[in-house]
């Protein structure tokens, strides 16, 4: 059961196609297991359709349609895409959601479906990361974070945003408890201290769009080492 969903403005930006690559990836991974948010995206896409329906017309070349017919006749020899149907079922019983962990398809394409096989790098006591090869915009980074049980992230504030999707285990902060499938959009100026709150590791998919700024003096000293 998912308790933390995407905000309206994230849904709208995803539908518009205007999120950065990293944010769009994290959002898509939530949509993959959240039919409620996927339905909201479909609603937001109605706006896109209405904008296209209402935009002014610009004349196209006379022969454009004929060129398209040539293209489709050529394409005729290729098979058409199949409906993805049942394989794309959005419920939590789908094969991508097993044993209390969730490996989104977009992520499985990059790392396979086994978190144990990921080449984790230790970035500090109790915290490991794997930076994903996502082509992202400047200052943006998409990574998997693995927090050991009881690990408390240093108290930090944000310059930019931090979008987090829980893939295994859970974490808690002032704003609530986040379990597998839940998403957190930590806004600019938000102040929080997430803690892995069960006996198991907490694995999250995280997109940050600016370096985090840690509050404490010690953690500020650690920051260049942790690199987050």
């Amino acid at each position, binding site marked *: 059961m998912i308790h933390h969903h995407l905000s309206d403005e994230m849904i709208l930006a995803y539908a518009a196609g*205007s999120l950065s690559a990293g944010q769009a990836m994290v959002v898509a991974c939530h949509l993959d297991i959240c039919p409620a948010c996927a339905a909201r995206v479909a609603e937001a896409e109605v706006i896109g*359709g209405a904008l296209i329906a209402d935009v002014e017309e610009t004349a196209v070349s006379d022969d*454009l349609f004929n060129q398209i017919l040539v293209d489709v006749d050529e394409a005729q020899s290729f098979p*058409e895409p199949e409906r993805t149907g049942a394989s794309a079922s959005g419920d939590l019983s789908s094969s991508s959601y097993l044993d209390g962990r969730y490996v989104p398809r977009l992520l499985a394409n990059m790392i396979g479906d086994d978190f144990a096989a990921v080449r984790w790098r230790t970035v500090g006591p109790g915290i490991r990361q794997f930076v994903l090869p996502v082509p*992202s915009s400047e200052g943006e980074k998409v990574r998997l974070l693995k927090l050991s049980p009881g690990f408390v992230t240093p108290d930090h504030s944000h310059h930019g945003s931090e979008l987090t999707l829980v893939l295994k285990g859970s974490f808690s902060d002032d704003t609530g408890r986040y379990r597998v499938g839940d998403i957190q959009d930590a806004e600019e100026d938000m102040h929080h201290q997430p803690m892995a709150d069960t006996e198991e590791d907490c694995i999250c998919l995280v997109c940050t769009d600016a370096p985090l700024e840690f509050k404490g003096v010690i953690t500020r000293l650690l920051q260049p080492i942790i690199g987050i």
Partner: protein
Amino acid sequence: MTAGQLSAMLVALGEHHDRGAFRQLFDHFAPRLKSFYLKAGTNPQMAEELVQETFTQIWRKAHLYRPDKAAASTWIFTIARNQRIDRLRSEKSFVYKDEDFFASKLVSDEEQTTEVHRNELVERVSKAMALLPSNQAEIVSMAFYDEATHAEIAQKLSLPLGTVKSRMRLAFGRLRNILSEVEA
């Protein structure tokens, strides 16, 4: 042409590659899609190439279109958006390559929305869009046409990021109210 007629033509295209329906869809949407791509900052030649590619996709994927799930304009928007990302913002094309995905997922929903509702919804959303306060409409169109991120919009309009987000929320909230009225 009404939303219902456009839906019917997309269905005919999907069922038996009806060329007459394809031509009518082209006549209706191609000049609009050209404007859509021009607004994304392409030159006229590139815009026509994108229109050409979009219609090739429409031809190939029309059999996936479900009139009870989306109005024709909504479905064509998703194809066009993904085509734009594929060609102009390829760094995120891996996220948007499968526009059939959410549509097929929603098919399994128990949600009982009919085709008539879908088409009525588009018309009411269009009307509501025209009535949005200009500062909300501006932000929505920057997101959909210019593909500007929240941060870029904030910078261009010299607004705090929170203001941009709250205006987007308000605009979407308005749409969602209309949606629930239509579905009720």
